[in-house]
């Protein structure tokens, strides 16, 4: 592996991967909150449409969606996206659908008395959501969002298939240039692992802040895995049925 490959491809590739993760995460979060809150709507048509969206985007494969946006959209709608944005759109829509299930679950888990108290104090529905329900629901969302964020980071590797020059794409080029498959792929696997580790640490910090904000101490994870959180059988089953199902890029 030469210095040139590092400077011209790998390091810019790391930056592209970070940008992709960031933009897709922001887009996915917007979709997740929009859809997740809309799924609690009293109107059946809103619930039906958002439920349909979630099932469609959880049901299909992120890679197929990416190819579809990349190859079919320009032909079908005469509208071509820059590869980077096609990738962000595909990842954001898919992971937004998973995330909306987290949002919905956390909102449903807020004690009913809180909602009733807000109604009794004649808060408007918007105030109820913003002042009472979300502040309590958000700290609960952070751990599952952390898992989803790692899945998203891993899924950004898919963009190399539509020729966005991320870390995986840089690795392919380096392999063709030098032929050192072992060295190159070992290095980038470690790079991804480091990124995942940093993301997890940041999310833990965020969780502690959010929980402190509503006067709770964070749950000690004890002797759990290094990065992902230890889950009980029930949580695992619930979480995998709700979130990871479509999983990974999953």
């Amino acid at each position, binding site marked *: 592996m030469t210095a040139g490959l590092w400077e011209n491809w790998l390091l810019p590739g790391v930056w592209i991967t970070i940008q992709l993760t960031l933009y897709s995460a922001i887009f996915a979060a917007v979709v997740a909150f929009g859809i997740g809150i809309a799924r609690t709507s009293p109107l059946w048509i809103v619930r039906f449409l958002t439920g349909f969206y979630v*099932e*469609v985007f*959880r*049901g*299909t*494969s*992120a*890679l*197929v*969606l990416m*190819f*579809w946006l990349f*190859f*079919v959209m320009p*032909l*079908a*709608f005469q509208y071509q996206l820059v590869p980077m944005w096609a990738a962000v759109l595909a990842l954001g829509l898919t992971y937004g659908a998973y995330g909306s299930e987290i949002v919905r679950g956390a909102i449903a888990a807020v004690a009913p008395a809180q909602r009733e108290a807000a109604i009794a104090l004649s808060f408007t529905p918007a105030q109820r959501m913003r002042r009472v329900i979300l502040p309590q629901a958000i700290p609960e969302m952070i751990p599952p969002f952390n898992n989803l964020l*790692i899945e998203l*980071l*891993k*899924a*950004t*590797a*898919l963009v*190399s*298939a539509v020729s966005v020059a991320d870390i*995986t794409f840089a*690795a*392919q080029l380096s*392999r063709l240039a030098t032929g050192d*498959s*072992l060295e190159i*792929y*070992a290095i*980038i*696997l470690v790079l*991804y*692992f480091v990124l*995942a*580790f940093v993301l997890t640490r940041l999310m833990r910090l965020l969780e502690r802040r959010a929980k402190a904000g509503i006067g709770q101490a964070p749950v000690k994870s004890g002797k759990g*895995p*290094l*990065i*992902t959180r230890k*889950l*009980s*059988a*029930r*949580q*695992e*089953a619930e979480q*995998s*049925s709700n979130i*990871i*199902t*479509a*999983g*990974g*890029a*999953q």
Partner: protein
Amino acid sequence: MSWNWDVAKDFLPELGKGLLITLEATALGSVLAFALGLVWAMAFRSPTRFVRWPVAAVVEFIRNTPLLVQLFFFYYVLPTWDIKFSALTTGVIALGLHYSTYTAEVYRAGIDGVPKGQWEAATALSLSRGRTWIAVILPQAIRRVVPALGNYVIAMLKDSPMLALIGVVDMLQKARAEGASSFQYIEPYTMVGIAFIVIAYPASLLMRALERRLGH
């Protein structure tokens, strides 16, 4: 939007062939993931930390790095060690290994959920370690995690198109080939996308029903 039914009809047999490969990769990958995951989960319970720690580190590493890169790793690095597999076999190994790190957590959760009294009873009856696992712990642990395992099979199905990127002729690869040879992109890719939803949605409904039945 210019949907052409003739193109769709011509592509249908190809889609069917691709579907078989997709299902084959998913099924074989699942078998590997279920078996390896159980090995990891039992290693987590090993009495010596010289087994527990390395296994935990490897499992963490595999789970937190992208499947696609692992796929390329196996596809390009194994041949340099004179281990030559077909693209499909390589894909199945990578898929199974990657998901075994998820199923390991599922099994672990299931094993942790078995009451401590069961372990103690097995000791009191002086069952051997092997008998304790096979006759007492695993039957109780696995029953409760079946739906969670099923969900990972669905997740694997949806990750299997990645195998197309190392040349496995699955549904996505069939669509790519169709696009490359006839410049028809709209119908093949759309059909592949729909095929995934058509398989994954009923499967996830089935898992939800199973979850309710097995109850927690």
